């Protein structure tokens, strides 16, 4: 059977199995379809009921004297009468009367206190809602008089704030009436005190409560959908003893985990879709459209569909994480215990993202979970989301998902996971139990790069200069952070897990042939890179940000001594990036992937790590060429040289013509002369041809454990 045939067999069986389980059906269908509308209608009604009753409740006011109290009381009565009269003038069925006229302050509980201090204390104790002090003790009688009104309130107290608002409205209405009367008496036109008529229309989308919370709910529901099947298909299978029956069939662990993982993803996406449909229906038929979107068009159905599409990679990520976590567990209960902290861990970035002020930018673009919550919110609230933002969210999520699937596959196949009684469970993590090995595992390197990626992104974002500043700080910081993170951490991992450092990082002397290949590739790679970026520029244009950063980079580099400059932009990246991407990552990937899969994946990861989406394809292609060179030569040295030469040429060419032909100008986007192009491609071709013969493996380094396998 083909790979797809095998996966399909497993997929169909597991899906049948899980869908026949009543618990899945309840979690997937009953919860969203019944619980959602109930909860939403209930809570929304509760909230609106509360707001309405607050607006009609008696308010409790504290005053200093009986005369002030009486004065306030008359003010309230007069206002109520004026509104009532207004209403009658408009007619009982008038739409305006229903919508525009304010609620009068029907009645107020006015209490007298001995001193201002006492009033303040009572407001603080929330015995009274507002304290009012008038000076002098009555309404203004003449046009020269003014009465000051001082309020004491506690804004944290909803009732106090509401009472204060209603009193201020009352005073404003009264003022308007007095002014109108005075103008009429003096024969002044209405425009007398209104030289301007201001009207405004707010075009922003004020955050609506539902629109803010809904993405978080959707994300949580997607996770919830993944939990049960993930537990059932891993720990559940172990608990019921079917795992042993399964593992003794001639089917690879990878096929199994892929099949299971697809089922969990399917259920999670189905769950998300049902949730989304249920929310949409509830909001639509419940008449809450305005709570989601501020436009009068109601629910943006297109956006809902788009959100569902975006949730797919997220469902993939969470399914993979859940399968990985549950694969550790022997029993259902144990798995549930492991899942709880994961949910809490997910809530943190999700919660940060749900804060109204958080924007989809910087670190949030690559923050797992958080970026998805933000993206869904921006779409839902109708904000403009750029293609680049969407791409960042989806690419980083897919990357994390791939790492999680790899980890899940490697855990699932472990003996101590399949057999509860096969040795200590802790041995999975125990260093002593590990055989010395030649290469890190795929899951180790994928997990490491997946964790390093957001950290590196964050560091770069945090260090990147304000507009107008030079890039010096970033460059210098990178020059010591890169060795620490790209080389130091992998080295620690290798040493801790007792993995052969020399072999994993390909620290061997290359043959002369491969050395020459490295030099030729390094000297010529810039030619196709330049030509391709020119073509890309002609088709797609270059974003302004790229041009600007190019310009800033140039200024910074010009201000540096040449030696330092080459150290910072060519030597350090060449050494560190090669050791990480072509040493650690590639050897890990190569330990169980086919040659070209490993080369391709390492190239893509290299591209992802370079942040500029605009340059992704080119960087990834370069990464693939470098990975090929390293694979063939079995040594890191040729590719380090190639990388160094490539960076050095790039930066020197960019700065070389100081008369203005720099990376940021139009001239930089011109094609190369034909002879340069031909020479460059020829050199590259010779380099690749030299690399096409693979170096012999160094037999002496094979360790006994590996020789046996």
């Amino acid at each position, binding site marked *: *059977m083909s790979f797809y045939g*095998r996966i399909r*067999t*497993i997929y169909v*069986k597991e899906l*049948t*199995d899980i869908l*026949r*389980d009543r618990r899945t059906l309840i979690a997937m269908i009953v919860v969203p379809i019944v619980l959602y509308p109930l909860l939403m209608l209930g809570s929304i009604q509760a909230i609106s009921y509360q707001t309405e009753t607050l607006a009609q409740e008696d308010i409790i006011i504290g005053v200093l004297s009986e005369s002030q109290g009486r004065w306030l009381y008359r003010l309230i009565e007069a206002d109520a009468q004026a509104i009532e009269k207004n209403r009658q003038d408009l007619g009982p069925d008038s739409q305006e009367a229903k919508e525009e006229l304010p609620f009068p302050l029907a009645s107020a509980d006015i209490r007298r206190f001995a001193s201002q201090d006492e009033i303040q204390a009572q407001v603080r104790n929330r015995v009274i809602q507002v304290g009012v002090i008038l000076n002098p003790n009555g309404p203004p009688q003449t046009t020269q008089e003014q009465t000051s009104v001082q309020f004491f309130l506690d804004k944290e107290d909803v009732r106090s704030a509401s009472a204060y608002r209603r009193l201020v409205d009352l005073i404003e209405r009264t003022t308007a009436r007095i002014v109108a009367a005075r103008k009429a008496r003096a024969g002044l036109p209405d425009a007398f005190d209104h030289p301007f008529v201001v009207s405004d229309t707010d075009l922003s989308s004020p955050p609506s409560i539902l629109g803010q919370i809904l993405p978080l709910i959707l994300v949580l529901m997607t996770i919830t959908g993944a939990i049960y099947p993930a537990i059932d298909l891993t720990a559940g299978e172990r608990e*019921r*003893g*079917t795992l*042993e*029956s*399964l*593992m*003794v*069939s*001639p*089917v*690879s662990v990878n096929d199994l985990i892929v099949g299971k993982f697809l089922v969990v993803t399917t259920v999670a996406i189905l769950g998300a879709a049902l949730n989304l449909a249920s929310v949409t229906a509830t909001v639509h038929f419940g008449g809450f459209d305005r709570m989601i979107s501020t436009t009068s068009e109601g629910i943006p159905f297109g956006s809902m569909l788009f959100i569902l599409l975006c949730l797919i990679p997220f469902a993939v990520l969470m399914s993979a994480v859940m399968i990985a976590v549950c694969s550790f567990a022997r029993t259902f209960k144990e798995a549930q215990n492991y899942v709880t902290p994961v949910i809490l861990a997910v809530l943190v970035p999700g919660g940060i993202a749900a804060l109204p002020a958080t924007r989809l930018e910087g670190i949030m673009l690559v923050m797992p979970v958080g970026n998805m919550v933000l993206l869904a919110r921006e779409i839902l609230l109708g904000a403009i989301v750029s293609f680049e933002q969407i791409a960042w969210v989806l690419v980083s999520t897919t990357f994390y998902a791939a790492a999680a699937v790899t980890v899940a596959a490697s855990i699932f196949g472990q*003996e101590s996971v*399949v*057999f509860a009684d*096969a*040795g*200590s469970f*802790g*041995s999975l993590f*125990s260093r*002593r*139990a590990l055989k010395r090995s030649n290469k890190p595992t795929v899951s180790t390197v994928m997990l490491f790069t997946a964790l390093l990626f957001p950290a590196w992104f964050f560091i770069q974002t945090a260090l990147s200069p304000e507009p107008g500043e030079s890039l010096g700080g970033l460059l210098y910081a990178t020059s010591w952070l890169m060795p620490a993170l790209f080389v130091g951490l992998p080295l620690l991992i290798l040493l801790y897990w007792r993995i052969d450092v020399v072999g994993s990082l390909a620290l061997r002397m290359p043959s002369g042939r491969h050395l020459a290949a490295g030099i030729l590739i390094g000297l010529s790679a810039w030619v196709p890179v330049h030509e391709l970026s020119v073509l890309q520029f002609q088709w797609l244009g270059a974003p302004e940000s790229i041009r600007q950063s190019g310009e800033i980079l140039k200024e910074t580099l010009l201000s540096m001594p040449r030696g330092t400059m080459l150290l910072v932009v060519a030597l350090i990246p060449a050494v560190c990036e090669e050791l990480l991407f072509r040493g650690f990552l590639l050897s890990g990937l190569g330990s169980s992937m086919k040659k070209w899969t490993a080369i391709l994946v390492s190239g893509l990861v290299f591209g992802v790590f370079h942040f500029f989406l605009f340059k992704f394809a080119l960087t990834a292609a370069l990464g693939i060429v470098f990975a090929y060179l390293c694979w063939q030569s079995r040594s890191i040295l040729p590719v380090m040289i190639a990388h160094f030469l490539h960076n050095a040429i790039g930066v020197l060419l960019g700065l070389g013509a100081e008369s203005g032909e720099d990376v940021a100008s139009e001239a930089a986007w011109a094609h190369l002369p034909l002879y340069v192009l031909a020479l460059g491609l020829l050199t590259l071709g010779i380099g690749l041809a030299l690399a096409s013969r693979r170096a012999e493996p160094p037999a002496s380094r094979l360790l006994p454990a590996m020789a*046996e*396998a």
Partner: protein
Amino acid sequence: MDLVVADNLVKVFPAPKGREKRAVDGLSFRVGEGKIYGLLGPNGAGKTTTLRMLSGLMAPTSGSAILAGFNVATEPTNVKRVIGFLTANTGLYQRLSARELIVYFARLHGMESDHARDRANTLINRLGIGEFADLRCGALSTGQKQRVNIARALVADPPILIMDEPTLGLDVLSGRVILEYIKRQRDQGKAIILSTHYLDEAETMCDTIGLLHDGRLVAEGDLESLRKLSGQERLNDIFLKLIHADEKVEALIE
């Protein structure tokens, strides 16, 4: 030809605090076509670990096992193609019917779906599963389940059968059905490794018996040679004598 050749098999489990447990310690034996090899031993002797290594579920720490020409250490997937593995622990999918389950495992063995269905029908008839073939496995009795389990193990008609306590927990009738079926498989020329606690079962079934103790083979041979070796008549006594447990039994009684 010997279908199973185990040579100096060792399995070491890591244990906490740097100690290690040698569950199987230098085990060698062979099983030929049409033979039943009985692997006997007290709890913790290493039977289950041995069977798991033979079936490619666990990698041996050292030594080798060749099953029908495939090495368990380097070709575990091929080994799984040529064995039928059955234990008292191998569970069934509760939410699949017996028929669906057999078809699923047939598909995992690479059969096309028509072929898989035919094979399932054959096994259902031969093992008397027909009555409950379309019930969900969760609703079956222990004996019925074990019959379905045998059907699962035999689905690819493998030349080697590895059976760990196949009759554990079954009533006499169900146990007899299964033993008879195993004998019939032997008569068809299969190599069978049988691990059991029921010594009378071993007496009637096995051509060769290997006594396993502390991960090592303490004695091996047919019933007759074991009798001579130990000077005991009944397998129970032979067993206790050879693992030097007879003295322990006496000590415990006194």
